[in-house]
């Protein structure tokens, strides 16, 4: 086990013993997690492990029943996602928060449109917005043919990257990525993973939720495995080979058995 952040500055965000009940359902029973700047922390777990509840708690959608939530060492309590966003914690949800029928520019600046002009003639500064969009897309390596093109025409990976780029552009310090690669093909996945790497190099903290160990292993520095609302452990990459991680996540033996029956790794 490790706590990489123990000696350095306070981690960007840290939760200790987070508990979340929904009525009689105990969704999280004491989960601890931290992520520092320039780190990709993978949150692994099978369906129903509590990943979604945990990230929604981090994102300010849910409030924890008990436990501590610290941002840069200071305890916080977010009333809504907007508060979390203002604190620099941006969540890119699986459903992307992108609107397919709207242009890339309009999506990129949705809710935070730059304006020019005085009140009755206040309008979106499309020159600025388009040039920023083009520039940011170029930085990711997406050649936006035309910032007016609808987001619906982009591929899944491109959309995911646009969503991440948007969060980064608007000053996120911590990115929570909810299964960004789960619906993507191989090439698209590598595009997203590459971009996550880029974001890490910029010094942001990333919480990367996935149930694909390969994707996690490719991008992550540390791994936390959740099972039935509990942390099974946090490991740094050097400590744990991929197969062990896989087994840990799937709950051990059964999967190994299936895997050997199928003659390979699942």
């Amino acid at each position, binding site marked *: 086990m490790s706590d990489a952040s123990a000696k350095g500055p306070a981690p960007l965000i840290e939760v200790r013993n987070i508990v979340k009940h929904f009525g009689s359902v105990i969704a999280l029973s004491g989960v601890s997690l931290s992520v520092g700047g320039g780190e990709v922390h993978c949150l692994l777990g099978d369906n129903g492990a509590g990943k979604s509840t945990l990230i929604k708690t981090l994102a300010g959608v849910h409030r924890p029943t008990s436990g501590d939530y610290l941002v840069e060492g200071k305890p916080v309590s977010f009333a809504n996602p907007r508060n979390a966003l203002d604190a620099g914690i941006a969540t890119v949800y699986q459903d992307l928060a992108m609107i397919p029928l709207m242009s890339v520019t309009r999506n990129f600046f949705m809710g935070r449109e730059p304006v020019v002009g005085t009140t009755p003639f206040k309008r*979106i500064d499309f020159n600025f917005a388009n040039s920023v969009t083009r520039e940011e897309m170029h930085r990711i390596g997406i050649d936006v043919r035309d910032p007016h093109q609808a987001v619906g025409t982009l591929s899944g990976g491109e959309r995911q990257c646009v969503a991440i780029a948007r969060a980064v552009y608007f000053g996120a310090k911590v990115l929570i990525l909810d299964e960004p690669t789960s619906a993507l093909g191989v090439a698209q996945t590598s595009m997203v993973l590459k971009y996550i790497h880029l974001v890490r190099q910029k010094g942001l903290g990333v919480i990367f939720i996935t149930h694909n160990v390969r994707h996690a292993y490719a991008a992550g520095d540390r791994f936390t495995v959740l099972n039935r609302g509990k942390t099974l452990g946090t490991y740094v990459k050097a400590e744990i080979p991929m197969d062990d991680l896989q087994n840990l996540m799937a709950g051990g033996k059964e999967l190994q058995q299936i895997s050997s029956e199928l003659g390979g790794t699942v």
Partner: protein
Amino acid sequence: MSPGQKTPSDVIAPAAPPAQVDERLRKTSIVTEAMRRPELGAIAGLIVVLIFFLFTASPTMFTLSGVMTILAPASQLGILAIAAALLMIGGEFDLSIGSMIAFAGLAFAAALVNAHWPLPVAIVATMVFAAIVGAINGQLVIQTRLPSFIVTLAFLFILRGLTLVGLKFATGGSTQLRGVDDVVQGDLVKSLFSGVAFQGFFSWLASNNLIDKFDNGVPKVSGVPVSILWFIGFAIVATWILLRTRVGNWIYASGGDPNAARNSGVPVSRVKTGLFMLTACAAALVAILTVLDAGSTDARRGVQKEFEAIIAAVIGGCLLTGGYGSAIGAFIGAIIFGVVSIGLTYTSFDSDWFQVFLGAMLLMAVLFNNYIRRKVTGER
């Protein structure tokens, strides 16, 4: 090398930087570019309709007076259609606008005739009143999360019923409230909402033999009905709001995907409530225009206007599912409506063909819009 063969480098080099131009992306032609505009279908429709009438209608349809005859009813519908289009882009319907016309007409006429309020006060009061009803509509839809279809359908009946009851109360048993003319006689504000504009210009045109005139020198068309000016002005403002302002972006976003919009910080509830208030105010404006023109109001005002407005918006390229459409499209949709409904009287066809024509037009518009939507989003 034969095209079927792959060199090893083709296969193993996915990491190589992609070519500047994605080979799977066809070069978008100007035609495809134009297809992205929601109002394209409406423009095409208008051209088709105009060609049809050019061959079948008597030439008087295309004279100045014919054009005004077509545009006057189109403008009233158009004001509603543009508001309905904005609301549809925002992802909701308002089926109560037809009844709202009658209801606002009652409020307006009663304020003038029964309460003896001055015209400007009555106009402002009617607008505020309509905005409140619109806000109630919007809040009900948002708070209950019921489809706006149902909520506003309820209001279609509630407002119509209230209008009947209120009219009988205000008049002592009649469903028509008269006497508006007498109380607004000579009011300067009236000319903003009633009659025609640019009379001097039209007389000048007539005196220079540029337009048709009667034998006594009075032009056959004495001016532009003010409702047409309201129609054009509203279309311009609405288009500007949609395409150039933050609110416009929020309207598209609220209709496109309310959750995604909310996650991105768009005040979806406020946008939608505001749009419901806008449609109600548009209905009130139409009520004021018609009441001042007719000098009276009655309980049957605005019957079925809600459907006509939605049809015009759909013909203008609005998707029923929200998030896509334009104000210019609704503007053209309303003109198509006027051209067909009035135009048939210039032909030898039975003018009852109008409804058949309208239904067919609506069906074609919906099919076309869906096709365009798939184009725009690259089939998803």
